């Protein structure tokens, strides 16, 4: 790269930083005081890894798959930097793949729903990019829908998650950012026999929209 090109690249980079940073700086300076009501919508891809272990000596299995994830969180600011909220997190793993006895089997035309309703706490770390961290605990329903022949089965369990992200202010009370979430969950099933326990990890990368 010659000197002329290097200068152009540096100028473009500076321009990009200024364009991205300028509204944030302006918004920060004009940001209204936080509202008591907190609303966050989040959407993004998620990846599931889930083990299934029957209560019998039969071999278990590990399932993996991608899912679209959606989250709605509604709560209130209980302290200047603390939010307490209720949250509904929905993910549907499409055509999961099951590893069983050395083989891998894609289950076409299936959706493995992982739905959690629970309580969430979120800590605003402040700063220019609106960093935040939090955790949630809730009840989970795990449902398997076979879109080909219409069967639907649901199991119940528990889920715990941690999340963190950045959310710069974009306009008024609205922030937009990205967040990562790691959800650990467990559920059991006994119909049809044998009874079995499943542990899973759902990793999500979310685009967040928050009003506060």
């Amino acid at each position, binding site marked *: 790269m010659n000197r002329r090109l290097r200068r152009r690249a540096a100028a473009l980079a500076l321009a990009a930083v200024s364009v991205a940073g300028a509204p944030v700086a302006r918004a920060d300076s004009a940001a209204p005081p936080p509202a008591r009501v907190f609303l966050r919508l989040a959407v993004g891809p998620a990846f599931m890894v889930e083990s299934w272990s029957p209560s*019998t000596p039969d071999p278990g299995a590990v399932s993996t798959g991608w899912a679209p994830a959606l989250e709605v969180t509604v709560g209130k600011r209980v302290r200047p930097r603390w939010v307490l909220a209720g949250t509904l997190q929905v993910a549907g793993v499409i055509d999961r793949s099951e590893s069983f*006895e050395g083989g891998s089997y894609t289950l*076409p*035309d*299936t959706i493995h729903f992982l739905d959690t309703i629970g309580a969430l706490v979120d800590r605003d770390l402040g700063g220019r990019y609106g960093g935040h961290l939090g955790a949630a605990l809730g009840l989970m329903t795990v449902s398997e829908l*076979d879109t*080909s022949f219409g069967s639907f089965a649901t199991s119940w369990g528990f889920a715990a998650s941690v999340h963190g992200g950045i959310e710069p202010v974009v306009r008024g009370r609205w922030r937009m950012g990205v967040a990562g979430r790691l959800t650990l969950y467990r559920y059991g099933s006994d119909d049809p026999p*044998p009874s079995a326990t499943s542990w899973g990890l759902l990793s999500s990368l979310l685009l967040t929209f928050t009003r506060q």
Partner: protein
Amino acid sequence: MRRWVVAALLLGVGCGGPPPGVLVGQSAHFRLYVDPALMPVAPPFDGDNALAALETEWSDVQTMLHMPDGIINYYWLTTADAEAACGSPDEGACTKESALEIDSPTLPNPHELNHAYLYLRKQRKPIPLLAEGAAEAIACGQPGASLADSAPWPGLVAEDPPSDEAYLQGGLLARYLIRTQGIDAFLRYYEQSPERRDPALFGANFHSFWGVTLDEVWSAMHIPLPGEAVADQKICPCSLPPPGPGATATNDPVRDPYWVVSGPEAMALVPPPTAAQVTINDCGGLGQTQTGQVVLARIDSAAPWYAMAPANVMTGPYLADDCAGTIPYTLPANAVSPSSPFSVFVELVASSAASAQDVYFQLGTPFAGKVGVAVGEEICGSCGFDQGSCQPMTAFASVALPGPTVYGRWTVPGGAVGVVTQPVVLSPP
């Protein structure tokens, strides 16, 4: 049944409509619609006979599945209309279970009827491998699968839509379980089985229910036992009333789609003029089918066999324990002709016992010709066996017919599994 949900959804949003059938009648368990393109219906299913054939099928299978009463909407369609109704050119026929509707180009269609019967028993959705397997389990006169062909079951559990291999292997699994564990145990298993296409769950549930692993059963069901065929057949209920003593030739595929060959009397089974030979099948579907232009059979009723229509059946002591008590089966005068090179195969079929036994037969042979005599057989011109020239054969030979009636003695070997057969070949001089 594959993709019927898609078809139902298409119908629901107005992309299709009811199949093009005209309601032609209703019976105790069926409402029959016939495609206008198939009308007028030709014999033997003309008039009320199509409904009668469906009711015959119901009454037969009901002895195994014990389904409750219900009305099944049967659409008898052209192949093209059946494919359109089923929503896919891959679908020759289908069952829309929630509507209890069958769309089929054949009547009766045992596979689709089994789907409907099982849904009448319990409204659930076992995975396709098992659902299609159960539908493939019961039918009369239909081939099953080669026992030697296998495929790993976990992949078949996950499949959707099920492949032809899933139909074959699922059918073999269902028939193996019915044969070894009984139909009632199989139905209990079927009705608690997973509705998720999950190999690990399916395997664990199988083990939990039966106490043996699916791997073990999968291996066992692919190994023919001594005396069994290398390919099985579907299981025939064989519950239709047997022909009464002294019954004579009938040929009614509607009310007598098959004849059970069992009981104290022997049978002569002969194909009608339109069929070249008659075949008898093991009701359990494991014995090797036996075929001949004439079949003389005496079979233990504990392990019955059957002959599919079209077949003409005559009951009587065509095979008997003593020569004098045997009645002759008389072949047509033109069965063997000097101008024809063709032979006539008369198949003798008898259940084996613990020890060897002699059975006698007589054949009316109003023509000149030769008879092939195998080791263990003795052919005579009268009941005077073991006298003069009437001696047991020590090697196969083709000898001149001893007269207008052939008297034969066949020593059925003891200790064999299932049935034992012996061909008698009548050939031109």
